[in-house]
């Protein structure tokens, strides 16, 4: 039919067919055509979806505030998030991010983490349902407590992680990574509708209902005590690490506070109705002024998680098992769960598989690059000698050099070994030492404040 959809090109064919059957075109009848048969601009088909509107943009509750403050933004899926917050005169991203990390670790910082997937899970079987979904146990979690959860796919590979809290005997508040929010929700609905329809469990996305802010650093509680209506309710002894509390903030706004940490510092996540997200970031900044509070972006968040050796999207890449990531101990042996059987396949428990580890440059001035492949010293830098790759890197302002996380064959038996991180794509190689993935505060003492 070609570009005119048969409107004109077919006329010659119709005339020939009419002649062959000794009739006229009106007698044989014409074929149908459909629009567009006249040239139209592609823009007319694209309509509104041009330029920045090619796809929708999703904005977290503090966006307008961050914009006015001069934040630099990054697209994560459809979300636009603050990547870092330059101060007047600051140009280079690295010193800005270094400053943000140091300020959080030495004082306090606030980050909008509203983009995390949030799922309200209710029902008499809610705990039992989560036990089947996650490889670790949730039915034993006490009301008012949060727990880190890891879920596998049916094939035994890691699917997603996040912190899930128990709000009541029959109610949980689940969080997922920003990237996998929709996928996890779909997975849960499939599990309920197809695999276990007999379970009394109800789930609904509340991702957009709640503005959520991470307040992290040794002065985080001091800041929060000026924002919550009853400061004593969040004292260290009544709300220890992994505690969860319903409370009110800013004069009567119903909110939830979670004492959880991605940065490794004493930290909280404050969740409140999204309409108050803008008011909350302004109030937190004002309340924190005496304590040196700064806003920090996704880059500083990423640096701190690398310093702490936490896995994230680069490691949860669909090809890693819980064991690969050093999280094998989370796989319960007392219950069944999605992925349990397939995670036991010989190829997935092979001790030679690449394992999660830390990597530091032998020459402290060397810059590390994510994507570099690990090759033994003296071996040819070729695919046959490939032993794994660097998944994430960061410049650590706390250590004063670059650090990396990666997956290396038999890494746990190779601590202290020096290997090459080869980057043929961008050129160059760096000698790195295999080390524990937790670079900063390995005993985790800072969490407890």
């Amino acid at each position, binding site marked *: 039919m070609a570009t005119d959809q048969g409107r004109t090109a077919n006329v010659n064919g119709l005339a020939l067919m009419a002649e062959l059957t000794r009739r006229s075109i009106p007698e044989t009848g014409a074929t149908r055509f459909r629009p567009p048969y006249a040239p139209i601009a592609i823009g007319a088909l694209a309509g509104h979806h041009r330029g920045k*509107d090619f796809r929708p943009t999703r904005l977290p509750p503090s966006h307008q505030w961050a914009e006015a403050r001069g934040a630099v933004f990054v697209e994560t899926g459809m979300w636009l998030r603050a990547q870092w917050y330059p101060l007047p005169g600051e140009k280079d991203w690295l010193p800005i991010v270094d400053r943000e990390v140091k300020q959080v670790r030495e004082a306090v910082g606030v980050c909008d983490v509203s983009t995390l997937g949030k799922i309200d899970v*209710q029902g008499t079987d809610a705990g039992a349902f989560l036990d089947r979904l996650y490889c670790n146990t949730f039915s034993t979690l006490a009301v008012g407590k949060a727990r880190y959860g890891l879920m596998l796919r049916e094939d035994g590979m890691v699917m997603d992680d996040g912190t899930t809290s128990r709000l009541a005997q029959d109610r949980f508040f689940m969080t997922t990574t920003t990237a996998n929010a929709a996928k996890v929700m779909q997975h849960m609905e499939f599990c309920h509708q197809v695999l276990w329809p007999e379970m009394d469990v109800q789930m609904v996305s509340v991702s957009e209902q709640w503005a959520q802010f991470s307040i992290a650093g040794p002065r985080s509680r001091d800041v929060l005590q000026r924002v919550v209506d009853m400061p004593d309710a969040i004292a260290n002894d009544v709300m220890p690490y992994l505690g969860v509390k319903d409370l009110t903030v800013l004069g*009567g*706004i119903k909110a939830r506070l979670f004492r959880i940490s991605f940065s490794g510092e004493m930290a909280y996540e404050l969740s409140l109705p999204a309409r108050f997200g803008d*008011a909350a970031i302004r109030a937190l900044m004002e309340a924190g002024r005496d304590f040196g509070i700064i806003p920090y972006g996704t880059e500083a968040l990423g640096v701190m998680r690398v310093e702490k050796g936490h896995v994230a999207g680069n490691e949860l890449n669909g090809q890693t098992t819980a064991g690969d990531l050093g999280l094998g101990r989370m796989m319960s042996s007392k219950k069944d769960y999605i992925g349990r059987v397939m995670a036991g396949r010989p190829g997935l428990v092979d001790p030679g598989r690449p394992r999660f580890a830390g990597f530091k440059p032998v020459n402290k001035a060397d810059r590390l690059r994510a994507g570099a492949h690990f090759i033994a010293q003296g071996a040819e830098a070729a695919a046959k000698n490939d032993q794994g790759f660097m998944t994430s890197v960061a410049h650590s302002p706390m250590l004063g050099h670059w650090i990396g996380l990666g997956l290396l064959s038999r890494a746990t038996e190779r601590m202290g070994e020096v290997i090459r991180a080869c980057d043929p794509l961008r050129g160059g190689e760096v000698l790195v030492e295999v080390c524990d993935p937790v670079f900063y505060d390995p005993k985790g003492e800072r969490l407890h404040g």
Partner: protein
Amino acid sequence: MAEAAARSALDGLYRPGRHGKAEAAAGVTLAELGNIALASVIARKGKATLASEAARRSFGVDLPETPRRVQAKGIELLWAGPGQWLALSRESMPAGELETRLSAVFAGLASVAEQSDGRTVLRIAGPKARDVLAKGLPIDLHPRVFRPGDTALTVAALIGVQIWQTDEAPTYELAVFRGFARSFWKFLAESAAEYGCEIA
């Protein structure tokens, strides 16, 4: 400390008044609806009938079993999937209040979760409302198949929406996820410009 001010997702984005084509009567009017409380209601296992009876006792209406919206005293109940509803109230109330009230009505029969802040609700009305929506909605809104009282969960301009029709003007109301509200508004306002658009 700063006064805790509620802020709409569309704050500062638009200016009320006449937009687009200036001649003749406006083809559509657009408005953001404030003071809307929302909550999702999901029946517990095997309790859909009892939940519906509870709704009848408290509000005088059954929970709709097809994609319809029913109105009762102080509450509207919109079908949102099998065994799922979106409850809506136009009464002014504090954040979280609708969940508290409905949890009492449906105790043990349905799970309730506050959604007032999770959605932005918009209204589009007027003789050209259908033409504007046709630019982004894949579903047919012709009165033959979509009438006052009908609701649908669909997409518009690549954004998930729940839409319902309230009268034959025609007037439609749409709930979109808050984070997408600014993108969605731009689509609506731009699509309405050629017909002349009055923003309330």
